[in-house]
């Protein structure tokens, strides 16, 4: 936990997209700042990403119509842009989560096997 504060894992684009989708799915509509905070929270401060990249991810997702954007009012009564996941987005999320888990399983077995060898 200590060294991880200075750890900056490089996140691939696609992974960040997945994270944003999942965030919106579990938290409901959020604005960009909120998404960044949630990711920070969930990753327990391990991941320090440039928060600006969230916005490029959001634009990418909007292009694919996996999320939609609308204007709303934030907690401090300011006008802010809220993003919400769409039906197509949910489907994509399910697919990618599935892929991710499968790959994770394979990697775990690979690495587990490697560790076992003398």
């Amino acid at each position, binding site marked *: 936990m200590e060294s991880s504060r200075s750890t900056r894992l490089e996140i691939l684009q696609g992974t960040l997209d997945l994270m944003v989708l999942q965030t919106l799915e579990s938290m409901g509509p959020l604005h*960009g700042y909120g998404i*960044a905070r949630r990711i920070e929270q969930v990753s327990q401060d391990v991941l320090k990403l*440039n*928060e600006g990249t969230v*916005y*490029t991810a959001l634009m990418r997702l909007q*292009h*694919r119509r996996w999320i939609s954007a609308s204007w709303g009012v934030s907690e401090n009564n300011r006008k*802010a842009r809220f993003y919400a996941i769409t039906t197509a987005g949910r489907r994509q999320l399910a697919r990618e989560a599935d892929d991710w888990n499968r790959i994770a399983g394979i990697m775990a077995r690979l690495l587990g096997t490697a560790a076992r060898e003398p």
Partner: protein
Amino acid sequence: MGTNPITLLTRLRFVWLRRRLDNEARRELSDHLDLLTARYIQSGLTLAEARAAARRQFGNATLTREEVYRMNGIQWLDGLSHDVRYALRHLRRTPRFSGTAVLALALGIAASTAIFSASEALLLRPLPYPDNERLVALRSLSPEHLYERVSAATLADWQLQTSSFQAIAGYRWYSVDVLGGAENERLKGLVATPEFFNVFGVTLVGRGFLEADRGRRVIVLGHDVWRRRFDADATLVGKTLALNARNFRQVGPTPHVVLGVASAAVRFPPLTADFQLDLATVVDTIDFWVPAFVSPSSPRQNPELDIVAKLRPGVTVAQAQAEMDAVVAQQAKQYPESSGLRVRVMPLREQIAGTSRTGLLLLSLGAWMLLFIACADVAMLALARALARHREVTIRAALGEPRWRIVRQFVFEVMILGLFAGGVGVVMSFFAIEWARPWLPASLPLLREMTINTTVAGFAAISALLAGCLTGIAPALRAGRTQSEGFVGREGVGLTPSRRRTSLVRACVAGEVALVLILLVGAGLLVRSALHAWQIHPGLDASNLLTMNVSLPENKFTWNHNAVFARRVVEAVRALPSVSGATVIQGLPMRSGSFYDSGEIEGFVPRSDTERPAWRIRVIGSDYFNVMRIPIIRGRGLDARDEEGEVGYTRHVVVSASFADRYWPGENPLGKRIGVGHPSTWWMTVVGVAGNVRYGGLEADPTVDLYYPQTLFPQAAMAASQPLFSDTSPPAGCCVETLGPH
């Protein structure tokens, strides 16, 4: 990633909303930064420290914004628009170069566009009839290659004996006056055989002419007349109209039954009708049709019809020509007096456009040469400029811009110049066309339709683009190559002339000189021909001459009234202060509209049918030769007594010198007699010989004329001519007043 149509549409929409999205993003990002800053302040940092920390955590906001903006764009389009805007900026900065280039190219484009619009009107645009590629004119030519019209019986024979044509129609000019309403109106139309509607694809409300209509007075009205004068009355078909038409049996209006109305306006086909007051041509619409019925037993002696036919689908002009030759040869055997006639099958467009094709082609070539010269000029200018920008190119290449982009940039610059030049050129050609319009020859009526329409504008655009490309390629390529030469110092590189560059310039100059020479020689030849034409003396003096068209309503008065009326008109006009002389003639010089006739001549025996005496009739008032300054070579002109036409007084006529030379060569023609008709029962005596006049136009030979005093030929409706010696006063207006009440 993301090439399915939904993504594409969304992305396009985002491209459209780019600016707005960028504005929103700016707000979003700044709000995010504010919130981050607030958090850091809460955890104890100062404002400045908090801001810095927020920025660090966020990353480069401007970069994010730029990246998002770029995501919402189409990359190649962005590159293109950037290049174009850069080019525009550069052109604005060098106004002298840009201005010169645009002007030079515009002149070239204007010339080619103007000539093209003439070609388009005359040669390219389809004639305003359905299936116009299948329409042919059957031109009958006399042995001297003069155009002859065809008699009714001959047309009937052709209709029966040929199979290449879907329909053959005969027609000639006709006019009637329609009475009633606010004012009477003279309508211009045709006497036509019933096949006319078939040949020209005229759709009718009601019906056309049938055999059953033979002998009846019927009429089919044109679309414009129906709309204008009858207010598009839907019940007009079947009604009877009172019209003043040629009716030998009675004086006064003749009732005509309206059989049908054309559902669209129909333009006049080519006409060679003899007596016309207004030459109606392919640009005018037909007001009405009255029927002519032909059969092999119709009169064979009076050629009066123009013939147009529609080829059967699949039949070529050559095949039709072969058939017509055979039929004509057959007829020559049967009717020997018509031997020597040939019939030519000519596509209708050729008949209308005439021999203009060659001329237009030459003019087009000339205009394109002009354009090439302009392009070469601008290319050299562009080349010089591109070399002067050597430093800029080297820097850009050093910054990593690929060579093709640099070249593309230069090409764009010249192409934009080309497009501007295209726009200016189109405007210039528009004005050129409008300026030239009053000077267009009347013998090519289709030229009046010359205008800048979509086709012509398209041509101008393509020429502009091509000119731009042509001009820009060489300098651009040359510019792209300069990066490999020398280094970038403060003063730039010393431009040592490379062999390649000099040869390009030399090629341009040589090409230009060659083209300019060709153009100059061509122009010189044209000017010489024009001067030559000007020097041809028409035979009369037309300076200070004004003409006026006067006609009486057909069938309202008896014919003899024509002469009386004419005399009154001449007297009234002569009384005007600015007029020094006035006279009348039927059929103005240099325009068609005179009768011709044939007969026997005392002392001349024709050796064959082709030598049978024929002449053009000029019906004139007594002062004609004086007013028109036509010299009287022998004898005298016609005087008032000839014009009176007392009973028992010899009928005097004047002949032209060409007439006298042809029929009484070497003899004194005064006192000789001329008879009308075969055999002649009606004789006139020659009382004078007048100088030749080129009534047919400056390029034609002088016509063989016989001058009749008015009383001999009162059937003619007439035109009046009057000379003016002063420039003041608008005589036309005051003449109308004087003549008004009639």
